[in-house]
């Protein structure tokens, strides 16, 4: 076991999978000698050489498009898009090809690739470095969307993603890249894609969250005297609705927390499915604590934009008191 950060856990997963399987390669902007702008790929260039850790031209569509080709031939590319704000140019390749190739060719071709993308706000960064676009990709059939909230899950989920036969977008919450450490086994292990984690159990209310917001939820729970169950989705799609259902049926109350804008955020989908599955158990309307339907502000205002423990706490009280 090693007490490491989320960045180090991802790095460890990459090293181990690359050691084990020479079909795995890493490509992207600055991932080589520089070790990535967040140092996630630190040391890989030295260890595995320039043929497996590739600094590409500055072209997101090119990075994903060529990765699709690499994957179609049977390799396991792990492209990095430097920030979620730069996914835009690659959107066409991701949604028009990576997601559809299996269906389009009836599995004559598949695209086993893992797109690593730092995501979310809270790090004082310039424009287009703080967004939360997970719902956009969760809504594209054919993609799996993963977002770990802890070092342990990051390593296990990334190994699962790399081994997955289909395209996975692996969102890495920047705000918790280095925010805390966790004991992570040095041996390889997997955390299954599509399975949520119950972070703590409770009887009165369920909080569903993912990514960096999970930490905000923990803080709100720490302050509250209520018995609260926290479900960390870990995977956005496929959604582990069974875990949410079991929890909400037990507690009868639910708060969903995410950074993305509230309207059409992934919380909407979860709330709808709770209505479908838990209607008779609900003792209060499902509440969402989320970003606003505005452009993510520059960093001077980002802490006001992002859901924090205060806002979560208010929602907890409101839903409990309903």
């Amino acid at each position, binding site marked *: 076991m090693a007490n490491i950060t989320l960045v180090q856990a991802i790095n460890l997963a990459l090293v181990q999978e690359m050691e084990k399987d020479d079909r795995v390669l890493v490509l992207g902007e600055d991932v080589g*000698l520089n070790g990535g702008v967040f140092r996630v790929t630190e040391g890989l260039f030295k260890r595995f050489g320039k043929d497996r850790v590739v*600094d590409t031209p500055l072209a997101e569509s090119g990075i994903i498009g060529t990765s699709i080709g690499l994957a179609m031939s049977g390799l396991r590319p792990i492209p990095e898009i430097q920030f979620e704000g730069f996914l835009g140019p690659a959107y066409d390749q991701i949604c028009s090809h990576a997601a559809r190739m299996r269906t389009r060719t009836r599995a004559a071709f598949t695209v086993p690739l893992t797109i690593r993308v730092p995501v979310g706000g809270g790090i004082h960064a310039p424009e*287009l470095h703080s967004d939360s676009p997970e719902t956009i990709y969760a809504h594209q059939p054919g993609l799996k969307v993963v977002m770990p909230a802890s070092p342990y899950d990051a390593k296990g989920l990334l190994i699962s993603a790399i081994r997955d036969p289909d395209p996975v977008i692996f969102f890495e919450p920047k705000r918790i890249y280095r925010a805390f450490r966790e004991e992570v086994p040095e041996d390889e292990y997997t955390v299954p894609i599509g399975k949520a984690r119950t972070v703590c159990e409770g009887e009165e209310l369920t909080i569903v969250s993912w990514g960096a917001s999970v930490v905000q939820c923990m803080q709100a729970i720490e302050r509250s005297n209520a018995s609260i169950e926290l479900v960390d989705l870990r995977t956005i799609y496929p959604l582990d609705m069974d875990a949410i259902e079991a929890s909400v049926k037990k507690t009868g109350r639910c708060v969903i927390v995410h950074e993305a804008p509230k309207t059409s955020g992934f919380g909407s989908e979860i709330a709808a499915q709770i209505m479908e599955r838990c209607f008779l158990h609900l003792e209060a309307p499902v509440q969402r604590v989320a970003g606003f*339907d*505005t452009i993510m*502000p520059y960093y001077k*205002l980002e802490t*006001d934009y992002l859901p924090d423990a205060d806002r979560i706490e208010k*929602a907890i009280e409101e839903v409990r008191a309903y």
Partner: protein
Amino acid sequence: MPITKALETQIDHVSILDEHGAFDEQLGAGLIPDEDLIKLYEHMVVCRQLDEVAFKLQRSGRMGTFPQNMGQEATSLGAAYMLDDTDWMVTCYRENCGLFWRGLPMEKILQHWMGDERGNQIDREHYCTPIAVPIGTQMLHATGLAWAAKYREEKQIACTFFGDGATSEGDFHEAMNFAANLDIPVIFFCQNNQWAISVPTSIQCSAPTVAQRGIAYGVECLQCDGNDIFAVAWCMKKAIESAREHHRPVFIEAVTYRLGDHTTADDARRYRDEEEVELWKTRDPLNRMREYLKGKKLWNDSKQAELQERAEKTVAEAVERAETIEAPEISDIFNWTFAEIPEQIAKQRDTMRTSSIGQDPAQIAAEQTTNA
């Protein structure tokens, strides 16, 4: 049939004032009047001073990420100097020197990097578009702006700035293709500073020049020494004439060097040799200009000392202005998503500190019954 040549071409490289002080009178004489030279040099020094202060501000937590302009002052400045004040400057984020020449207040730039959108609220009269963070995207906007001017039968043109890395993005190629085929008066000004963060130009372009990328689109191409403001001005003069008079786009590759890190969040020592940096320091556009002015007896050490003092004061005052601007209110962000605030967003604004933003308060307050 014998094989014939379908195309034969060459790329001209323009250099007027080299790093050793040699000056090409034939090309350079009369290009920039002496009094303008002094003003241009002063702008470079102020811009360099801002770089140094901004770096310290970031390190002491007074500012967010900042990209220094060091080493590239002559490129955007030379271009801005040659353009008309009503020509569009469609920049990336390393063109401070040219923007200041246009009169953009320094505190606006500081405010932007201090994490406040209001730094982008640029008066239209500057004809400068806001800092473009997503790489390469702004070249298409420049093409559109110039297209609009042509459509309106105005003499206005656009000049767009970008780096060598941006020429790998699809948008670059689409912009060049549009401009060439639709006869749009836009100048594509590539600041080839050798590095896209840690990735060298060789990974963006393995042809001998970046400039020749324009040939494929039928665009006239030029390469110049980007640290030589005379060479930049010479190329711009030619390009402006072509764009303004003939609606033909021109691609200029200005060869320069990013002396600093990519941004304050970067550490260039990790991926490039100090030797290379030292070499390029000898080609620094500021030194070159200062020595040239001294040679022409237009400059001396006391003027330099006076200028340095003035630059420090100018920057310190701008920093003070930027730091004393009242912090934005969070409610402000709701006012700018649309021209008219949709009710849904207004409601989020009014309930942003409640348990559930955007929800009708009547819905939340469980059982408020009115007595009929």
